[in-house]
């Protein structure tokens, strides 16, 4: 992969900016230039957007696992290769009161379902759920009398990550999707990338 470094621009332009900053600090900028200087440096946004931006970059997962996918979940949290601290989601909370989202990592047995629902109810709003792997999405290979076929039978699931188990990249992509959902861009622009506008599913 090629690493592209951002260029600083022509040296004299950079020098001009530097001089501008010095003059601003000394209070020597004329009014129109000062106005332009401030406009270049202030971003305006809504409070909701700023809040969602903060939320998406500090997602605390709830530290609990259900089955074999839990081991895979631990590897994406803990291992340097797939570090989800890059996305602000590494602070695993042991208490549902402090967690933002929950990864259902493994099959949900009918005995465990009320427990999970209770933990989900104890989490504070806003809260999200990722169904990790085939089992918690649709019972997967454990399609039998003991397992709930899909965790969305008893709690709202935001992101489904397929796989048995999912690749770490897939789960990280699921977390990215959740972040995009939090900041209200659920498709992450794939329709533009694949030239697929107008193919949205309608109810």
């Amino acid at each position, binding site marked *: 992969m090629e690493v592209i470094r951002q260029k600083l621009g022509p040296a004299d332009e950079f020098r001009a900016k530097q001089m501008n900053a010095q003059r601003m600090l000394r209070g020597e900028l004329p009014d129109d230039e000062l106005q332009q200087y401030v406009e270049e440096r202030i971003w305006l946004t809504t409070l909701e957007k700023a809040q969602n931006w903060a939320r998406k970059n500090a997602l605390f997962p709830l530290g609990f696992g259900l089955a074999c996918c839990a081991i895979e979940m631990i590897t994406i949290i803990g291992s340097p290769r797939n570090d989800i601290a890059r996305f602000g989601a590494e602070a695993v909370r042991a208490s549902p009161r402090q967690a933002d989202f929950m990864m259902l990592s493994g099959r949900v047995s*009918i005995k465990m379902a009320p427990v999970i629902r209770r933990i989900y109810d104890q989490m504070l709003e806003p809260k999200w759920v990722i169904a990790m792997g085939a089992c918690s999405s649709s019972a997967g290979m*454990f399609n039998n*009398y003991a*397992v709930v*076929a899909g965790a969305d039978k008893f709690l709202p699931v935001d992101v489904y990550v397929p796989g048995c188990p999912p690749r770490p990249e897939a789960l990280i992509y699921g977390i990215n999707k959740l972040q995009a959902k939090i900041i209200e861009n659920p498709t992450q622009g794939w329709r533009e990338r694949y030239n697929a506008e107008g193919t949205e599913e309608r109810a």
Partner: protein
Amino acid sequence: MPDATGLELIAQRVRESLGDEAVVGTQYYREQATLQVAPGSVRDVLTHFRDTDPEPYERLMSVHGCDYLPEEPRLGVHYELLSTDRCERLRVKTRLTVEQAETEGLPSIVEIYPGAEFHEREVFDFFGVVFSGHPDLRRIAMPEDYVGHPQRRDFPMGGEEVLFTFNEHELPRWYDK
């Protein structure tokens, strides 16, 4: 491991101490010795193996259930014994019908081998074999309000039909409702 001759000697000793009707048969298959006993005398046989036999088995490794559906009697309960001194294993099997299992059941061996408590609860949970004299016979794996004994072979598999392209026309489609 007791060999075939040793197994016959073991069976002979059981017959001598507990009577002929206690032992139903012996089986020696793939170098594993199995003693088949009558369901009523399970506790006596295991007490004999733990206490009075000259070659005792002081450990119970596992108790498990089994369902031989077309055959009758249908249900089986297996006890795996181990002697760590002689490094020998012996399997004690008993067979009983569903009616027998649900009414009189088997005598519990928790007093002899306390480690059998959870194993017997598991056999009760999955196969519906009642162990009389068990201190706390509840379901162990399935929820308390579950109906039925799911590891029996006539119990439905459960789960949900999966939609594939070959059967999507036979199944009601989720988006058609």
